């Protein structure tokens, strides 16, 4: 009986990223106390002094991409001690901006960032190709977004807590954009990645007149060649289009067949 009433043990862990994803959880404001009441937050190093680093966890949210050896060790440890592992945010789901490095010569990038210290990146700090979590471990759920949407996180938590199989929104940005009756930027000859990108953001950027830049990563059936044609017809240079494709989810677009490796020159 006590087992039945036990609150789920939740961890919120972080590897290479800006930590903005876990901030989104802590910024749920009026519902934060409800959240903390419903779960046992056993590890959240950003906001807690004492953390249970050894698990086990019922759900472990991991933000950030695997970008060095230490990241990988941590991720494997968390995976082993978690029933459910959630990749939270576009770093964790798609490697995000650090993933751009995959399309350039790594040494040149390291030297540009670290100067002469580049040669001393050793041990845990030794870089690995920036990659999403599922390149290394089994990921049960992915909530992309830079940062992910508060409503998507809350929905996931609520569905998990009631024993449902959480459903992640899969439709392109255009769906919510059209439902909001926003005038289409592509139709107006502007730049917008909406048709390729997973929504869930309620068309946040097009809603204020800014084209989608793609921070949620691609939908599974993205029609890349035709969307590129539409953008080109609007006068967007191919190089810029490919930079957009690289920006948040270059590896995923690469896997979907976008010819972005050869199109963008190095730094």
């Amino acid at each position, binding site marked *: 009986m006590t087992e039945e009433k036990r609150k789920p043990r939740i961890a919120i862990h972080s590897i290479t990223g800006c930590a903005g994803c876990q901030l989104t959880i802590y910024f749920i404001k009026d519902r934060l106390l409800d959240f903390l009441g419903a779960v046992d937050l056993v590890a959240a190093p950003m906001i807690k002094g004492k953390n249970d680093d050894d698990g086990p966890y019922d759900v472990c949210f991991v933000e950030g991409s695997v970008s060095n050896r230490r990241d990988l060790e941590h991720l494997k440890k968390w995976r082993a001690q978690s029933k459910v592992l959630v990749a939270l945010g576009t770093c964790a789901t798609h490697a995000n901006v650090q993933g751009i490095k995959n399309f350039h010569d790594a040494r040149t990038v390291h030297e540009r960032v670290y100067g002469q210290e580049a040669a001393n990146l050793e041990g845990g700090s030794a870089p690995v190709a920036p990659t999403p979590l599922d390149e290394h471990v089994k990921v049960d759920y992915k909530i992309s977004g830079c940062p992910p949407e508060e409503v998507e996180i809350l929905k996931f938590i609520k569905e998990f807590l009631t024993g449902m199989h959480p459903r992640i929104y899969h439709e392109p940005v255009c769906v919510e954009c059209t*439902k909001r009756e926003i005038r289409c930027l592509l139709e107006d000859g502007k730049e917008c990645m909406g*048709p390729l990108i997973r929504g869930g953001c309620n068309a946040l950027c097009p809603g204020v007149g800014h084209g989608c830049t793609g921070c949620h990563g691609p939908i599974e059936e993205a029609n890349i060649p035709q969307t590129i044609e539409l953008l080109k017809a609007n006068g967007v240079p191919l190089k810029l289009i490919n930079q957009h494709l690289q920006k948040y989810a270059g590896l995923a677009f690469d896997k979907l067949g976008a010819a972005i490796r050869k199109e963008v020159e190095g730094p």
Partner: protein
Amino acid sequence: MSVSPCSAQSLLAHEGKPLNSVMASDRRGERLGKILRKDQLKPLFQALQRKGSLYAPVKTDMVRFQEITTPEDVDAIDFSGHAFFPPKKYLLPNEEELFAIREGELRETVAELDQQFIVNVRMCDLNAVGILDNLYLDPEYPDPYYRAKRDATTFIGLNCVHELDEYCFCGSMDLQREYDLLLHDLGEAYYVDVRSDKGMALVEGLPDAEDDFTPPLPRTSKVLDPKGLWPFYADKWWAGDNELCVGCQRCTTLCPTCFCFDVKDDLDLDDLSSGKRLRVIDSCHSPDFTRVAGGHDFRASRLQRYRHRVMHKLQYYKDEFKRSMCTGCGRCIRYCHSKIDFVKTINEEFVHE
């Protein structure tokens, strides 16, 4: 997996008779035509505002149906454009609550609604309401949520004297005169075609039209060849358009007769045994639409989904209800990112050698 209310059982229940004949059945030999001077239109709309809520198209960066809340705002009502989003949103909102559960008690959300008047609705969108009625007001399984809104709604149409743009093809569709009132521009006045008691109640005081006149149905230069589509089911007929489809679902989202929905639960975080059940408009162009438990997807490819939409609009519905489900509003072509034109494809490419 999404739900569409046209179960085989409900389709059979009607024997092909359009339900909307109900709408026009209350005429009882009254004069059907009234004359409304143009200077009387604003007072008429303002009178509707006093009776309930008034919704009308307004042009800003686009034409959109919206609530007209103040008497002065009646001046902003549009008479020349084609609304981006169809007025079906007042009958089938993108998201609506079906019931709520609080402290173990279930409370249905069908509310007593105030009257709503939707004006300047084009013939295509008026016909769409009749098509939705066939599905949602099935005599055996009427949908209470739709019913409540439908009963509270009066449609006042605006006849298209000229075609609105090159995407309109309603002129080639089987249009019915389905509305409460239709305004037909005669120059100095409107001929008001009255088709229901609800409509008559609003214009009783107006003078009867003298001539025996029926407003003509709109004509369009774009026409859809009414050929049957069953001989053209094979993938090859659809492959060309499919290449251009980016899967954005604007065609279904903006279609005045697309009616499919998904059902979702939204729980309260502070008490997970409380919450609400929502009906959310869905799209057959979504890969999730036909995906079922275990991961199988009945229409796994974009081509299958595109074909399904067009076949449903032009063939499947017609097989059951003896009329097309498409009203020729042109939105799915006008607002398609790639301007995929199934009318052109059917007319020009669906030809057996």
